[in-house]
């Protein structure tokens, strides 16, 4: 029985190798030579910037650690007793299981919604300023980006575990999927216009396929939050979705709104089992 299993495994590997060969052949044939060169250059650039020792995103992680234990708000307490889903103050692996349903709030929340909830309920902090600085910019640090960087980093090396057992989580998954395919605005775009086929590009930028579970979704969701070289800032999934809707010519979605969490639930479902390595660094 064991021999048989390994024979099948060997055959599978052989097939995989052959399959990759076939795919690579087809790929090369359909491409312009200059295209291959551009893609190689982009790959080289990616390899160059993805050195963790020189990733400025880790400065956000350090700041986030300080913010987590900083006493503030009317109650002058830290966030250290905030329950991110696996128990008060527990951080290791919490991000891998978000978004999820929180009984105390009666709803499904992503990390940013949950942090705002804890700031309001535990610290009695007026979150107006924190929300105003939700996205960092020149001369403007973002507590949210720092905290997400710190907390997400505590799930680095772990696998994405989408939480979809609670009826509210199932509802969010369905709503998220529906929103993914919903066409609107002056371009008639939905998320699926760009992210529902394999191996497509906008200009030279590769587009991850979220229409089915697998590698593209895993690699994408496993690498957010990320330090974006082009913006010189740490960015979270909230920012990424905001940026997508900008490019779709939709109005700006409200920060930490339930629709964005629904979309995140759907994308995390497609990314199930993907390894989290964050903060990453991207173009």
């Amino acid at each position, binding site marked *: 029985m064991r021999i048989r299993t390994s024979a099948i495994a060997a055959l599978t590997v052989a097939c995989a190798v052959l399959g990759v060969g076939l795919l690579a052949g087809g790929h090369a044939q359909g491409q312009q030579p200059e295209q291959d060169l551009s893609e190689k250059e982009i790959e080289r650039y990616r390899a160059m910037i993805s050195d963790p020792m020189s990733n400025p995103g880790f400065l956000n992680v350090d700041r986030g650690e300080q913010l987590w234990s900083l006493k503030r708000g009317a109650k002058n307490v830290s966030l250290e007793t905030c329950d991110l889903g696996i128990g008060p103050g527990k951080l290791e692996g919490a991000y891998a299981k978000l978004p999820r349903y929180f009984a105390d709030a009666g709803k499904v929340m992503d990390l940013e919604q949950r942090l705002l909830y804890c700031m309001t309920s535990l610290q009695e902090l007026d979150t107006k300023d924190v929300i105003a600085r939700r996205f960092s910019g020149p001369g403007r640090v973002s507590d949210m980006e720092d905290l997400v960087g710190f907390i997400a980093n505590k799930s680095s090396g772990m696998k994405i575990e989408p939480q979809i057992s609670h009826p509210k989580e199932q509802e969010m998954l369905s709503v998220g999927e529906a929103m993914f395919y919903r066409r609107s605005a002056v371009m008639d775009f939905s998320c699926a216009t760009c992210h529902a086929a394999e191996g497509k590009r906008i200009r030279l930028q590769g587009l991850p396929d979220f229409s089915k579970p697998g590698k593209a979704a895993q690699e994408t969701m496993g690498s957010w939050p990320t330090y974006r070289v082009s913006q010189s800032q740490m960015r979270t999934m909230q920012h990424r979705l905001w940026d997508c809707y900008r490019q779709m010519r939709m109005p700006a979605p409200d920060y930490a*709104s339930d629709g964005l969490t629904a979309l995140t639930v759907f994308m995390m479902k497609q990314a199930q089992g993907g390894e989290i390595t964050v903060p990453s660094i991207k173009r």
Partner: protein
Amino acid sequence: MNRIKTCILVASAFVLIAPAVAQSPAPKVDPAAVEAFVAATWKSTTGEWRARVDQDETQKACTASNNEPTGVLFDQIRDRESAAVVFPADGKVLGDWKKGAQVAQRGTGGQFTDQANTYRGGNCYACHQMSKAEVSYGTLGPSLNGYGKLHRFDAAEARKTYAKIYNSMSVLPCSQMPRFGHNKFLSEEQIKDVVAYLYDPESPVNK
């Protein structure tokens, strides 16, 4: 050889199985519930921008049919969108190909971070190959290199192309391509310039 055959068989089995696994769909949801989430997500959006959130009849039909309308629905969309195409009053659909190159290249305008008067580009290269000289092109749409030549620089074909850019769904219901004229994203002049970029024998598209 046998081994390769087996591999191909095994591989095809995976191909057949894969979509079945992929389509373990989320539980059905009431469209009204989805719209409630959409409304909450753009709660702060007001004024002219608000209209972008709501779907028109065609967007609704395309979303509901997963962009594959059939039978009567297909005809309904095509007829409705065709009727909405506005051709230039003088019937001339060919503008200036050099200006068309700019429309095809530029991807600015219409974003919430733009000013109302920011130049609006067609951003054709985001999805299509056009001139061979431009290597930075996307692949969501087919290559349009040699487009005019392929259509024999024919005047009637150019008119069809104008309609396609003005309203892609007048040609193919639920096309992924924006309805540039219909949604007033590009002006009549810009569309004419892009048609010229595709059809002028001097245009790099046809070189």
